[in-house]
């Protein structure tokens, strides 16, 4: 599949919050297990450091942002960088919806793992919708 048939996923790294770790775990599941051929995972920091490949990807492809807390850094930084956000996942809302919380930032525990799986499915569903439109 060419890059044109792909979607970019940008997730907050969330080092200081347990839901940030859930965010990272969920995007890894999408990229490595659920939709490896359809997704380009883009780190946030290189966008601000001006790495050109990353900037081109978010300008050329539809972007899904995954935010771990109310600061919504992934969304803010993609808007600031001029990317086209076509889908948004807000992890605290998903945690409420599924009534699941991780044990800690370094150890998700069974509930946190289950939450990451559920969020990965949500992201994959948005990926499928967007790739059908391309």
């Amino acid at each position, binding site marked *: 599949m060419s890059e044109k048939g792909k979607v970019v996923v940008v997730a907050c790294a969330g080092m200081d919050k347990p839901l940030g770790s859930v965010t990272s775990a969920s995007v890894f599941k999408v990229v490595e297990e659920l939709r490896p051929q359809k997704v380009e995972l883009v780190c946030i920091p*290189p966008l601000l450091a001006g790495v050109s490949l990353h900037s081109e990807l978010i300008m050329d492809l539809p972007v899904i942002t995954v935010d771990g807390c109310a*600061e919504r*850094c992934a969304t803010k930084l993609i808007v600031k960088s001029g990317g086209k956000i076509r889908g948004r996942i807000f992890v605290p809302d998903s945690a409420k919806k599924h009534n699941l919380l991780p044990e800690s930032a370094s150890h998700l525990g069974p509930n946190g793992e289950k939450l990451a799986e559920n969020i990965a499915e949500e992201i994959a569903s948005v990926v499928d919708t967007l790739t059908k439109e391309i």
Partner: protein
Amino acid sequence: MTMAKWKVGIVSCSGEEIPEGTISRIATRLVLEKLRPDETVTICLPLFLAGGEGERTFAKLFPTITVDGCEKRCAKIGTEKYSGKPFATVVVTDVLKKCPNLTLKSRDELSTEEWEFAEKVAEEIAERVDEALRRQNEQLRSEKQ
């Protein structure tokens, strides 16, 4: 009067794209939770870059150590851009050069060897934390004299 205790801020790259980024985050967490829990705090890099005033002010007032997964050194560049020069930088790919037989593979589930490597990176970060605090104490002593 109680003096505020010096803390060192650790700014880790998010590095979701590569296994070295996962090592950065796990090593940082090991320092925060096991090796130097009373001496360190983490600074969330995306929030820092998005304009988090608390994060930026902390990084201006306290020493920081940036932990980068790769040669792009985004954590170091971001910290320099918004707050000031970090006290030290640890780059995972540099530490990896000391382990020629190790190839990092996973971004998600680390192997035993990858965990051991993350612990090695964490120890390097902890050494820099100790240096930063030693430097702060020396500075305070010389200011008192």
